[in-house]
């Protein structure tokens, strides 16, 4: 039953793809998806193609899908294991997930996070520090990561 909603969402994304996001189902029952996100322009992630893994739980959409980066990213809100700090992907009360958001909304939010990191709620404290106080260093390192892992 829940797969029905997901297959509708995927069909919609195939017909009207969101900017810079591609989704491929990894298995027939759609429990895991592979996602490619193109690094937004005017960011150190430009020209990079980042791979993400989305696991869709049985109780989706009442329980949010879990999302993580497979490609290494230098970002204040993304850690070494690709975990993303975003309140939208967590269940209330800790997070702000709602069944109306959907996979597409979530992926758009993740791409937005690449554009505008949130150093006030960091996952990588030192990168956040760098982002705030030594922006040049941050940009240089993020570009280097992008070239090394995402191109």
């Amino acid at each position, binding site marked *: 039953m829940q797969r029905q909603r997901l297959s509708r969402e995927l069909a919609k994304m195939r017909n009207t793809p969101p900017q810079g996001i591609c989704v491929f189902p990894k298995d027939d029952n759609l429990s895991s998806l592979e996602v490619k996100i193109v690094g937004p322009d005017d960011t150190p992630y430009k020209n990079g193609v980042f791979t993400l893994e989305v696991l869709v739980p049985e109780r989706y959409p009442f329980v949010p899908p879990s999302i993580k980066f497979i490609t290494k990213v230098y970002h204040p809100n993304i850690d070494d294991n690709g975990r993303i700090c975003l309140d939208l992907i967590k269940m*209330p*009360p800790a997070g702000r997930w*709602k069944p109306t958001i959907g996979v597409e909304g979530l992926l758009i939010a993740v791409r937005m996070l690449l554009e505008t990191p949130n150093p006030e709620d960091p996952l990588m404290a030192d990168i956040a520090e760098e982002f705030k106080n030594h922006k040049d260093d941050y940009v240089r390192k993020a570009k280097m990561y992008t070239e090394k892992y995402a191109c």
Partner: protein
Amino acid sequence: MSGSANRLQLLSVMSFFINTLKNILHTMLQLLWFGKKTITNSLNIYIKTSGGNTLSVDLDPSWDIKNVKEIVAPKLGLEPEEVKIIFAGKELGDSITIAECDLGEQSILHAVKIKTKTKLPDISTDTIDEIEEQNTRPLCGTLNDAMFSSEDSTRNSSTTSGSDLDVSGNSNLRVHFFVFCPTCKTLKSGKIRVRCNFCNSGAFTVHSDPQNWHDVLEPKQITGLCENNPELCANILNNREPTFAEFYFKCSEHISLGEKDEAVPLYLIRPNLKDVPCLACADVSDPVFVFPCSEGHVTCLDCFRQYCVTKLTERQFWQHPEYGYTLACPAGCSDSFIKEIHHFRLLTEAQYGQYQRFGTEEFVLRSGGVLCPQPGCGMGILADPECTKITCINGCGYVFCRLCLQGYHIGECQTAEGDININNEGCLYNVDPTRAAEARWDEASKVTIKVLTKPCPKCRTPTERDGGCMHMVCTRAGCQFHWCWVCQTAWTRECMGSHWFG
């Protein structure tokens, strides 16, 4: 030769007999079948009279109300013109057929003697006439039309009028009201009924049709006239306020078990007349659950169940001061709590049992009580706030300390590691082996809980950390305290700086 001729004769005689027998049987069967048909077509109805008597009559659904009056009037010693028939808040007009009234087997009609209109209190005669002329349609029909917008009403009227309202029950009919029936113990289609809010008599006619669910669910919205004893109900109320209609619901899928056989209206479950897709699975189904938020978010019933089960296992139901243990719209709309908690009866018996248990526990904790920590007990105890020695009086009898939820002790509570290995000295002999086995099981589960969990610093709900950072948010819906897994105190900036990830 002669033998074979005889045999032929015998055969022809036998075939004649067989044929006649066949014919007789056939006509008998036909008669029987015909008799049966008339029986299935009739409807056993009770008619309550103003004198308080109840008549049982068999009616044909194709008859009209005039026929009914002709049957009932002689039994009351009246002429048919002197009787009016009231059903579900409406006087039924002569030309309406039984089939149009949506009567179930053993429904109750009310027969009242028409009184001289000058005797009626306060209401002028012409209004009465007007009402009688207009409101000859049964209430079940008029409410449907009133409840939905004009575009839907065409679809409604096409199903409520006409011959498809057969007593045998047409499954293609759109159901308009859904109820939780305590007899069938499940979701059923329901039917609306009206009675006097003062004397509870069903011989009651409404002055106007309810326009929406508010008119039906809230008391004292629609005025009417109690036909049972208008003077009495008006006089006792001292003519200070009019008599009001009280609406109630019955299950339409089992034969009525009398006047007390009522069902709870599940008014958030509605026919999906506008083909709205479910917000969770995007399927268009019928009926649907419409959340009481300003947006009116819709889920299918399967997704509603799924939503409830998810929230229940996460203990994320909310203890609402007025409504009880309930849920809000899954889209996060404000002010959208489900008021009628019988909607959670859509869950299975086991899930509903869990809902009730969690609801009770939450209520006890909210009221400043404690839950007995003994495995398998969990009795809720409301004790004096200063008292630390708690005895599980109505439950298992365990005596425990309110602060550490361990067996009662004098002095400071022991730390987590110290108190697991108590009670294992001095009683190595004289122990009942079965009791010993039980005790070990309990100890084992205690150890498991101790190893894997830490209590929330605020409400002491045992919390398991299955990964992620050290920033914990208490999962109990009423608590939601932000705390640090390392410090076991409130989460601070410092925790974030020094040991956010361990």
